[in-house]
């Protein structure tokens, strides 16, 4: 029997039906094993969700630290089990709220975090000694967070959380005023070294392929980028030789998207675990299996959400969440259904937390570990994706590694082609999107509530706070700390002990960021139109 040829979203030919023939080369102990045992294909932990379900962690924040603090409290009360903090677009650029450039955008797409005081405000009353926090930034705000934790009497050695710090995401977001890839890599590796000493339970890097995936890359291209970037970081530390590699990679964490092709996404997460195990163990000879555990946060894929008939996104998000669960993710962000229209409303935030809770508590999918392990189809897809990912990694390494491929413009050219390719497939109907290119209404059948932040007010509040903050700080101490930070940036020394000292005496994120970037200069957009 042969019906019309089908392909997975990444172009893997899919058969009518899978049989033992398709998995006959699998060696159970070598290729799968039980969860918590190498090569960790079935899960990084022995008990997985039977011991503890994934962390429910929505990336959020808006307007001001004060209002975001209320939001985080609300999320916690609704049963969210991890915090996830999105700095606003002005903070991400690395300018402070009183900079004339950012007049209209304070509190947009996140919250402004300009100083240690803002971080303190954002986390006031939140149990950060018990609940882990994700910070979508590259280091200095985490230094502020550590200082706040210390002030609250929390032992940094016990503090749990994650700093984004990912090269892939930052470069494809094309954020202004950022250093070139080699500068980014340098500060990223500095940060990992520093954390491995002062906060050994903190995940100092979250290699993140979510954004490039959302720009149209497929599942194995996503993994290829992810691991090529992780390898770059390890190679940089290998070159430096300051920290033993096992300590350096022990807390590496990862972040992927959950896209539409249900089984392929499950297979992707399973394949990723096996690949990471092989990179750490076979390639770098690191013996401690704890260093080879691929721990991953998965977020439903925003690019699959549509502005047309936004409630359809609820269904997409639920399937994608289920794929993340069946893949064995450690932490999940189910998006707000209104993401294509606005920042989430209270109602959509509630629904996204409920989506995860229903999956965890009502569907029964957490009853056993890796329930799809042994499926002829899923195992076969897992193998296929692994193989294609290795090829993709090799291709990037042949270009000199991820940072070099970025520097040379390859990455940006890729990110230019992919969305157009995908859009053409959508336009032609090859990729069906319900309510958009198929079953589309002439007129939108309904409207959804819209949330709007208030950037003008936020700017006023934030700029005024910052003015007072700058006035209040000990100017001599601040100047001295900044001087030492700039010196460190200009040397080969690890800059983070100096960042830590500087933020404690009132250095703002904008000031620290400028010191870091000035050494290298702003990285211009690497390709022409």
């Amino acid at each position, binding site marked *: 029997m042969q019906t019309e040829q089908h392909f997975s979203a990444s172009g893997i030919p899919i058969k009518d039906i899978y049989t033992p023939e398709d998995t006959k080369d699998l060696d159970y102990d070598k290729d799968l094993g039980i969860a918590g045992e190498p090569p960790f294909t079935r899960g990084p932990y022995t008990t997985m969700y039977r011991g503890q379900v994934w962390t429910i962690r929505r990336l959020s924040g808006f307007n001001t630290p004060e209002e975001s603090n209320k939001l985080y409290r609300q999320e916690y009360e609704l049963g969210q089990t991890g915090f996830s903090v999105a700095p606003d*677009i*002005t903070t*991400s*650029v690395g*300018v402070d709220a009183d900079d*004339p*450039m*950012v*007049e*209209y*955008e304070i509190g*947009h*797409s996140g919250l402004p975090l300009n100083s240690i005081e803002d971080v303190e405000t954002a986390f006031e009353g939140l149990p950060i000694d018990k609940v882990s926090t994700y910070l979508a930034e590259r280091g200095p705000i985490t230094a502020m967070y550590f200082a706040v934790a210390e002030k609250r009497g929390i032992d940094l050695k016990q503090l749990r959380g994650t700093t984004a710090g990912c090269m892939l995401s930052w470069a494809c*977001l*094309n*954020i*202004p*005023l950022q250093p070139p890839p080699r500068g980014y890599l340098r500060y990223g590796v500095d940060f990992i070294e520093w954390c491995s000493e002062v906060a050994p339970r903190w995940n100092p890097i979250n290699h993140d392929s979510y954004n490039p995936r959302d*720009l149209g890359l497929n599942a194995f291209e996503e993994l290829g980028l992810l691991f090529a970037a992780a390898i770059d970081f390890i190679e940089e530390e290998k070159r430096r030789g300051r920290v033993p590699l096992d300590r350096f990679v022990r807390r590496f964490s990862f972040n992927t998207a959950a896209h539409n092709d249900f089984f392929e996404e499950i297979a992707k997460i399973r394949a990723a675990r096996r690949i990471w195990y092989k990179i750490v163990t076979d390639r770098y000879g690191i013996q401690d299996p704890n260093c080879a555990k691929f721990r991953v946060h998965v977020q439903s894929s925003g690019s699959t959400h549509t*502005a*047309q008939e936004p409630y359809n996104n609820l269904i997409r998000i639920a399937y994608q969440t289920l794929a993340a669960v069946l893949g064995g993710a450690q932490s999940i962000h189910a998006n707000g259904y209104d993401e*294509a*229209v*606005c920042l989430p409303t209270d109602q959509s935030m509630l629904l996204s937390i409920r989506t995860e809770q229903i999956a965890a508590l009502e569907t029964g999918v957490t009853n056993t570990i890796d329930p799809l392990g042994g499926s002829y189809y899923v195992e076969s897809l897992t193998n296929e994706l692994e193989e294609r990912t290795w090829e993709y990694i090799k291709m990037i390494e042949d270009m000199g590694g991820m940072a070099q491929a970025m520097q040379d413009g390859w990455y940006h050219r890729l990110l*230019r082609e992919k*969305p*157009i390719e995908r*859009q053409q497939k959508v336009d032609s109907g090859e990729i069906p999107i319900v309510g*958009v290119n198929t079953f589309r209404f002439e007129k939108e059948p309904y409207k959804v509530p*819209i949330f*709007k*932040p208030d*950037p*003008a007010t936020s700017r006023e509040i934030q700029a005024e706070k910052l003015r007072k903050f700058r006035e209040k700080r000990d100017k001599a101490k601040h100047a001295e700390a900044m001087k030492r930070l700039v010196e460190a940036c200009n040397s080969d020394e690890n800059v983070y002990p100096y960042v830590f000292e500087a933020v404690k005496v009132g250095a703002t994120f904008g000031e620290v960021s400028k010191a870091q970037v000035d050494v290298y200069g702003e990285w211009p*957009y690497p390709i022409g*139109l």
Partner: protein
Amino acid sequence: MDKDKRKIRILVAKPGTDSHYKGAELLCQILRNAGMEVIYTGRYQTSEMIVNAAIAEDVDVVALSSLAWSQKAYYTEVARMLKERGAGDICVVGGGIIAESDKPALLAAGVTGLYGPGTPYQEMIDHIVQRVKKDRWHEN
């Protein structure tokens, strides 16, 4: 006759810190394919930078792109500053996810074309051509 036809000059600009640049890039390609001469400012522009570039380049159109909700502030500011500088005949259009509640103020400020996700390209091109012919080239 058609071959000698004047080409529309258009400045595509990204105001503010918003780094969602895919829309702007795509727009540049679409407008080029439609036979227009496209100048792209790149990211991280103030209204003043955009207006300066528009006047220096003597463009017919300024197309603004932002996915941040600073659209109302920036787009109206650019339109106002162009008028103040005696360049009110330059057509201003804007793209992004624009809130319905912002649209009246934008239109009133002279941002005559507003394009959200899923807008057919031709709709935007037709609007630009029509406005340039009328306001800039004084045809018809």
